[in-house]
């Protein structure tokens, strides 16, 4: 039942607006909507010869379609049509109709009172100036004011060739041509069955345009989905346990990057780390951070026999910092979004290769220049780096970013704990840390 509610909820408001598309029904051959054009046609015939009304006839015809198709998108569009005034193409029917009616009101007749008044207003071709603004006021206030309103700006239809008119159908359906072109197309539709059919089809298609829902995929879904699969059919070539944090973290970062536009890719990021005795930092961009990850992950790629992303440009550099600087230097331009592909391909290749080398390869040494880590730890380290820099990026573009899954985090913390004695010993040797207290000695 709760599920049901889920379904009903979004559907509820739609049902109402979709009543138009019960016009939708008519999309199916033999449906009722096919009557609509016929009605329109009748109108047109009846009104033939009187230009202003002919247009009204067309409005009845295609305006209905549009209302049906695009109502729930259409609300915005209608109001926009008003803003755009005559440029709004056929959307501008709405405002023009309003003006028709308003003009009628001005001469004392109600718009909805009698259909003939419309014609009267149209025929009137009153000499009132074509005054700005074209945006009609809400009807109520106009009625209150009772002031005379400008007559509709009746576009003079252009004489266009059939080919041109046909080429305009898409723009027309989207209300994206000029008022003159709109009028020319609509006049043409009254006499050309093929174009009228296509026009109706394209109008219906406009109703199918939907703003892509910005759905943030739950990052945890990946693990759930993959685990579900692997439970059903155990893999013959599994991803080694020690490569899974790296697999998961690179996937998470990649998902974060998914919808980034240029602005995000070039958002400034300050990388902070601790060197020697003080905190230091360096300015780069989101793309620069990915380039950094690409260059340093390259150490692992290289050890696994994959291509070095540095390709000669500073490939002799062995430490993470030197490789990053070399990569940044080697590109003539600051890194752009194009860095995402190579980074992602490399991370996939690392996981793939690590899977094939099997669990035995975990002990293989990966050189970081001035120290070495076994592959299993190197990948934990790269997973950690990936997470930390993903947070830098998320912060730079103001997105939320969750910590890694608990069991991956545990692996990273475990690595840090194991590394700590070595790091401290190195600092002592360098005179950067207090010497080890004598056994049993107290400070």
């Amino acid at each position: 039942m709760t599920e049901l509610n889920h379904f009903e909820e979004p559907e509820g408001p739609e049902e109402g607006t979709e009543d138009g598309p019960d016009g939708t029904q008519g999309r199916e051959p033999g449906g009722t909507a096919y009557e609509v054009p016929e009605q329109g046609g009748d109108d047109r015939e009846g009104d033939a010869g009187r230009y202003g009304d002919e247009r009204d006839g067309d409005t009845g015809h295609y305006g209905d379609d549009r209302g049906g198709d695009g109502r729930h998108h259409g609300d915005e569009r209608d109001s926009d049509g008003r803003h755009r005034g005559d440029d709004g193409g056929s959307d501008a029917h709405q405002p023009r109709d309003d003006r028709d009616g308003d003009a009628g009101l001005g001469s004392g007749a109600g718009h909805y009172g009698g259909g003939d008044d419309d014609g009267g207003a149209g025929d009137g071709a009153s000499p009132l100036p074509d005054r700005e603004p074209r945006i009609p006021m809400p009807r109520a206030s106009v009625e209150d004011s009772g002031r005379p309103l400008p007559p509709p700006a009746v576009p003079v239809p252009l004489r266009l060739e059939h080919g041109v008119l046909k080429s305009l159908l898409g723009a027309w359906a989207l209300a994206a041509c000029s008022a003159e072109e709109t009028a020319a197309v609509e006049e043409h539709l009254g006499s050309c069955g093929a174009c009228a059919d296509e026009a109706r089809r394209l109008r219906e298609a406009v109703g199918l345009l939907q703003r892509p829902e910005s759905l943030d995929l739950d990052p945890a879904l990946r693990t759930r989905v993959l685990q579900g699969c692997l439970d059903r059919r155990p893999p013959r070539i599994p991803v080694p346990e020690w490569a899974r944090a790296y697999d998961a973290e690179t996937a998470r970062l990649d998902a974060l990057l998914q919808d980034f536009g240029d602005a995000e890719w070039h958002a400034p990021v300050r990388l902070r780390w601790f060197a020697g005795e003080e905190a230091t930092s360096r300015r780069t961009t989101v793309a620069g951070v990915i380039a950094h990850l690409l260059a340093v992950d390259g150490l692992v790629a290289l050890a696994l026999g994959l291509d070095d992303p540095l390709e000669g440009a500073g490939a002799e550099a062995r430490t993470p910092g030197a490789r990053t600087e070399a990569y940044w230097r080697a590109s003539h331009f600051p890194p752009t979004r194009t860095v995402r592909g190579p980074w992602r391909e490399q991370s996939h290749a690392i996981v793939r290769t690590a899977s094939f080398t099997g669990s035995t390869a975990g002990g293989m040494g990966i050189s970081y220049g001035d120290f070495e880590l076994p592959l299993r730890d190197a990948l934990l380290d790269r997973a950690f780096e990936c997470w930390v820099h993903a947070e830098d990026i998320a912060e730079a573009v103001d997105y939320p970013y969750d910590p890694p899954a608990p069991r991956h985090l545990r692996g990273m913390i475990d690595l840090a704990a194991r590394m700590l004695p070595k790091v401290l010993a190195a600092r002592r040797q360098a005179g950067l840390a207090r010497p080890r207290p004598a056994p049993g000695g107290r400070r």
Partner: protein
Amino acid sequence: MAKKDAPPRWDRKMQQRLARGEAAALGELYDRFASLVYSLAHRVLGDDRAADGITREVFAHVWEHPDTYDPKTGPLRTWVASLTHRLAVQRLRATETAALAQGGQGSAEELERKVRHAAVAARADYIVQAMPAPLRAALESAYFQRRDYRQTAVDLGVTEDEARRRLRLGLQLLSTAHDTATPGAPPEYGGAV
């Protein structure tokens, strides 16, 4: 949308790797198609949990039966989309039927209409996503940004003729969402079993 003689290499390799039981391939498959699968399922079902469930089903199906995809019949992306479409529509119909049976409101015809509407909407999404980027960009400009075709031409750096052509072609493609058996739209029962 014409079928190519040689299926794209990536699709073929992916299928082989899945068939070999390579877990890393499954991860790559997910990374490439998860958002497609999830968003299509969500368009049909309109619900996060249900879309989650379909996503799980789709990948489980591909993982368990990689052989049901034949690279010769078309791109893997289309196949995955049509599989998603089918499972999501099935689930929608099942859920709605169950609700109806429990005395929910509506009629069988309304149910069918709802299902058909959801199916068309999902196909339309897929078509927009799969159409050539220049066409999509033109529609995006004219519809969502409300530029007229002349402004669209300027924005896209093409002639006005070309802008008109793209808008028309884009809508023509999109209108095929109404026909179930059109190439380019995932067929409702094509592909997987």
